[in-house]
């Protein structure tokens, strides 16, 4: 069975209320085509886990302005002025995590680990807000964070073969590699024409295709 499906079929696997892990850093590596299609189909009440909120016209920012999100877990949101409004109005819950803690929580979720232990965030809002819980192990204090998993991961890759083996370009990779492990369903939007199986050298693969459920071919 081919993993290549239409945009419409791809977003049909996303249900209202789902937890979605979205790859990207400043929207580099975020699949704008999938996000636009989600908005077109009126997806709502989503929990979104992502590094940052992009901008009003790029990446996750578009979901914010479409009011499709009920909860965000992310590390920064400086370029979308609507974020503080949604939080202040009680329309959206926001959990800010340090970037390195967030990626490790996702890794833990995808790698079969029971959580993250880190010194990052001790004595800060991360601890005060209860996002991380102080524990005492090995003779000193640290913060414990739970693992994160999603229903669906969406991301953008530069190249792929029909098996789903992925290659990223430059800073496109960011959160996506870990996110491919951490959801029940993984959808990759591919920039370059998708290759036949065997056309990507095994040593060049950055994410094993076995983790990828669906591929969407970008236009142009």
């Amino acid at each position, binding site marked *: 069975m081919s993993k290549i499906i239409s945009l419409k079929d791809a977003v049909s696997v996303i249900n209202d209320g789902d937890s979605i892990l979205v790859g990207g850093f400043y929207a580099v590596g975020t699949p704008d085509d999938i996000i636009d299609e989600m908005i077109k189909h009126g997806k709502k009440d989503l929990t979104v886990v992502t590094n940052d909120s992009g901008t009003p016209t790029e990446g996750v920012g578009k979901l914010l302005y479409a009011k499709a999100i009920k909860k965000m877990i992310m590390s920064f949101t400086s370029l979308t002025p609507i974020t503080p409004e949604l939080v202040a109005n009680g329309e959206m819950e926001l959990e800010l995590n340090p970037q390195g803690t967030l990626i490790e929580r996702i890794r833990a979720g995808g790698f079969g680990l029971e959580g993250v232990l880190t010194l990052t965030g001790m004595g800060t809002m991360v601890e005060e807000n209860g996002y991380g819980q102080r524990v005492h192990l090995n003779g000193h204090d640290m913060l414990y964070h739970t693992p994160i998993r999603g229903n669906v991961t969406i991301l953008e890759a530069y190249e792929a073969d029909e098996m789903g083996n992925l290659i990223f370009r*430059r800073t496109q990779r960011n959160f996506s590699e870990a996110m491919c492990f951490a959801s029940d369903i993984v959808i990759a939007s591919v920039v370059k024409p998708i290759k036949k199986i065997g056309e990507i050298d095994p040593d060049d693969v950055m994410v094993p295709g076995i983790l990828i459920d669906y591929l969407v071919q970008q236009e142009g």
Partner: protein
Amino acid sequence: MSRLSSKELIAKRIAMEFKDGQLVNLGVGIPTLVPKYLPENVEVWLEAENGIIGAGPPAEEGEEDVFCVDASKVFCTIKTGGCTFDSMTSFGLIRGGHLEYTVLGAFQVDKYGNIANWSVPGGRLAGMGGAMDLVTGAKKVIVATEHCTKDGSPKIMDKCTFPLTGAGVVKYIVTELAFIEVTDKGLLLREVAPGVTKEEVIEKTGADMIIADDLKVMPV
């Protein structure tokens, strides 16, 4: 040589700390000026937390790669010999003791080595991004800041009042007036800028300081 501005003086003094081949991360603002003042025989590798070792200057107009941005969302180049990677590796480098210095600005810094640089009470909601991981994980944290706020109040104080980025993490504070080390016994004034007296530094600092027995003039 023309007189250095406050920001240039701070950057030039910090550049003297770097050694050839070190991996460093530079925050926005004054820290980005540091590479300009590196001695000719010193080359450092800049880490961008979205996944680059060897982040270079902005790309020339027309030469931008849309998949290559630095941690400030600038389309950047990558120095020859540099490489790219995902966020798990990026924060492994940051937390794992592989980053020699992180240099960053601050709203407030105190005698315990606490730093507040990500959130102002009542200010615009932004998020901490990678700042908490950087100040916790880097081997040495250097705060690059003007000595006082625009209205003349001290930024170096007994105890930070803004939300912390990290507790007990700062090693050096470099301002246009002084080079200060955070020690177990408190703040140690090690150098004053050319033309600045220790009395002026004491007057403009909101915490007690120990004056080094061998107090020097900054060699800038």
